[in-house]
């Protein structure tokens, strides 16, 4: 029995109310490609940050070759031979390839910087592992994504890299680039290095990994030899035993007209790759349409198009039979599309403004509560007080900044405001993410109430429980394409497979 190269024993990490990792025990061996598989929020990224020294575990230890180590920072981890390639690259665009490499050396040059030496070292390493490196003197700003990733990998391996951690490396790559990457990973394995590879794509696990560890809700479900587990089994472990509750909103009512009709919608993605590819669906008044899927498969783009932040490259959006002609938030609101954005702090609230002011943060409300451009303060105060009472927003005063509220109360402010305008369509993304149980229930109840009053709701969520609990029909958004809707009773296993991107192979 050989000693594992890297081991975790009882590692836990907590962020506020969220237990990101709970008692993780895990072994990684030299000379293997080890995939970490799990849904968003399963704890994969936190696990890797702990290994890379970005985060320190609350409890538990990390063992390297059998002896305990503690990484105070990524640089310390790098000296121990652990390098990480983040999903979002950490290159400095204005510098050249060689300069970027020099910066990431375990002992960067202190005074005099000789890029030629670094370049020579880098190219020797690149040649050995069969990695095609961009010219050392080329500025990074001009490199395509694949070349940048190769540079990141080289950065992570610079010095005596024994462990390479990749966070969803194929998310930004074309299929050809991904094949190239896998070949490179196999070469690294052949040299006896350990490659840890975070993903939520079952096919990639099958294609490149030797072992797979499946995570769910901060814990390890199990580690398996890839040859001994089927894609179907992996999906089941990943999604867990979802017991689909009978949806709380009734069946599709085919008598009612479609309130929202989306047809052939395509849009460029945030990272320049395809975001949405021919998405069509329609939602009737009084219906919640769930869109499940793993983050990064077009969820963000769909939200942005529907609320007017992104112009689609083709396709149409009709609200109540009328086409949406301008894709601006103002036009979307005017057409009756309300929204609960995915990022409360960034997009839903102005944290430094008061609770009352945040309850007015909507074009329609401001219009209603003003007279020739003057705010009607008494009316605004009454309006805010009514909403605060109706939605049980707990605060010392409406004049307190929104920053002072708990996450649950902040979300209540957004929900109260958006529903006060009685939108014909409500677009909501992960509305209960990160909320305590009471607040999550209050938000869900509010969404159901507004649906019963005739609103058409689009629920985009990466939380399968949330989708299944609320929606009458569910589609899965994967790689920018929307599956045909599954209606209740929903086959959770089939849903899990669709989410893991196995649709094409099954």
């Amino acid at each position, binding site marked *: 029995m050989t000693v594992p190269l890297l081991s975790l024993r009882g590692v836990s990490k907590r962020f506020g109310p969220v237990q990101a990792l709970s008692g993780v025990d895990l072994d990684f061996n030299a000379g293997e490609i080890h995939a970490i598989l799990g849904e968003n929020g399963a704890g994969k990224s936190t696990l890797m940050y702990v290994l890379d020294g970005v985060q320190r575990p609350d409890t538990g230890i990390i063992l390297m070759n059998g002896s305990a180590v503690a990484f105070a920072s990524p640089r310390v981890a790098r000296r121990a031979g652990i390098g990480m390639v983040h999903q979002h690259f950490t290159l400095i665009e204005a510098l050249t390839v060689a300069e970027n490499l020099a910066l990431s050396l375990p002992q960067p040059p202190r005074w005099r910087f000789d890029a030629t030496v670094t370049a020579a070292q880098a190219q020797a390493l690149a040649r050995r592992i069969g990695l095609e490196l961009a010219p050392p003197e080329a500025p990074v700003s001009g490199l395509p994504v694949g070349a940048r990733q190769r540079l990141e990998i080289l950065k992570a391996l610079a010095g005596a890299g024994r462990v390479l951690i990749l966070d969803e490396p194929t998310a930004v790559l074309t299929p050809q680039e991904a094949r190239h990457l896998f070949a490179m990973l196999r070469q690294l394995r052949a040299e006896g290095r350990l490659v840890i590879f975070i993903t939520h794509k079952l096919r990639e696990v099958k294609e490149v990994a030797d072992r797979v560890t499946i995570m769910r809700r901060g814990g390890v479900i199990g580690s398996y030899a890839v040859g001994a587990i089927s894609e179907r089994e992996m999906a089941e472990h990943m999604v867990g035993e979802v017991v689909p509750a009978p949806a709380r909103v009734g069946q599709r009512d085919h008598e009612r007209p479609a309130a929202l009709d989306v047809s052939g919608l395509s849009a460029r993605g945030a990272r320049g790759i395809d975001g949405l590819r021919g998405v069509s669906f329609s939602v009737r008044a009084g219906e919640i349409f769930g869109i499940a899927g793993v983050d990064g498969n077009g969820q963000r783009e769909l939200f942005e198009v529907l609320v007017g*932040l992104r112009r689609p490259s083709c396709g149409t959006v009709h609200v109540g039979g009328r086409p949406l002609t301008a894709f601006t938030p*103002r036009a979307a609101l*005017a057409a009756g599309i309300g929204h609960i*954005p995915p990022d409360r702090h*960034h997009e839903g609230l102005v944290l430094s*403004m008061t609770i009352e002011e945040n309850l007015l943060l909507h074009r329609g409300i401001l219009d209603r509560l003003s007279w020739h*451009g003057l705010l009607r303060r008494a009316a605004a105060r009454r309006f805010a007080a009514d909403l605060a009472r109706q939605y049980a927003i707990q605060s010392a005063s409406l004049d307190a900044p929104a920053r002072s509220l708990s996450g649950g109360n902040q979300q209540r402010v957004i929900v109260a405001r958006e529903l006060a305008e009685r939108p014909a369509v409500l677009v909501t993304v992960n509305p209960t993410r990160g909320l305590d149980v009471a607040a999550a229930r209050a938000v869900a109840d509010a969404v159901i109430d507004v649906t019963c009053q005739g609103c058409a709701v689009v629920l985009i969520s990466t939380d399968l429980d949330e989708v299944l609990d609320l929606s009458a029909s569910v589609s899965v958004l994967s790689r920018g394409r929307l599956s045909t809707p599954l209606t209740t009773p929903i086959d959770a296993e089939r849903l899990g497979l669709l989410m893991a991107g196995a649709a094409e192979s099954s």
Partner: protein
Amino acid sequence: MNRLVVRLVPSLAALAGAFMVSAVIVAASGNSPGTAFTALLSGAFGSADSLSEVAVKTCPLLLTGLAIAVSFQAGVWNIGAEGQLLMGALAVATFGVRAVHLPGWLGLGGALVLAAVAGGAWAGIAAQLKLRRNVNEVISTIMLNFIALGLISYLVQGPLMEAGGRYPQTDAIASALWMPRLAPYRIHLGVVIALLAAAGLHVLLYRTVAGYEMRASGLNPDAARLAGIRVHRRLWLALMLSGALAGMAGGIEVSAVTRRLYERFSPGWGFTAIAVGLLGRLSPTGVVIAAFFFGALDAGSNAMQRAAGVSSVLVSIIQATVILFLVAFERGRWLPEPHP
């Protein structure tokens, strides 16, 4: 009102810190801090005449401080109040030597409108660059300051030089354009105009939809945009208003105090204004207080130099130290909300 008091705590603490540092400096230079500060105080508030001087010194700082407040609140970092002020002064000086035959109220009113338009137009260049070409307004407004300075330097030595041709300055403006004073003191109607501007800005920022939208756009442009606010229009409005206020400051100064334009017309009001705006926590009420305080320091400094033999530069040290303390206390908390 309670909230205002709480919001002013860091400002007051910064003042206390600045005076302590200055006291150490005065003592180290072999003078008595007590004597110096007493002289400073009586120089500012000792007589009706000195109070009038405080008001005169406060006026340009108040208007430019308001200019800073409105743009910073909307998240536009207008560092160009100095240039905008100079353009306002230039407009009045140019107009003033030609508008001899206009009735007084029309001439003066027209001059002030011109000053506001000139300042707004100068800021408008930065606004257009920002909205059309995404040029950072900090850079463009700073650069426009230099252009304004150079332009005035050229004009007062060339085309606009006084008829006698002795000094690099313009002719005196027509007396019809002189701002009414409360004789025998130098305090003038411009002070009232500046206070009205502060009241107007308060109403705009806190009582109107446009002001609400400006503040929301400044603190979180993404949330504002998603709420259907046309963020770009609000930034544009804030920068133009800012330029107009700074332009008014320059115009009033020409009309009420100097009566002509010359090189080094401004002792850096547009820059001190940033300190005034920040010290006043970017609120119009706070800016009134801060401008009055800075005005009093300026007015008292000469008396201090005469009576206590302490250089009037000490006042600049106090003003600068206040800002350093304030920035340290606040950790840049008036900046837009950080995005995770």
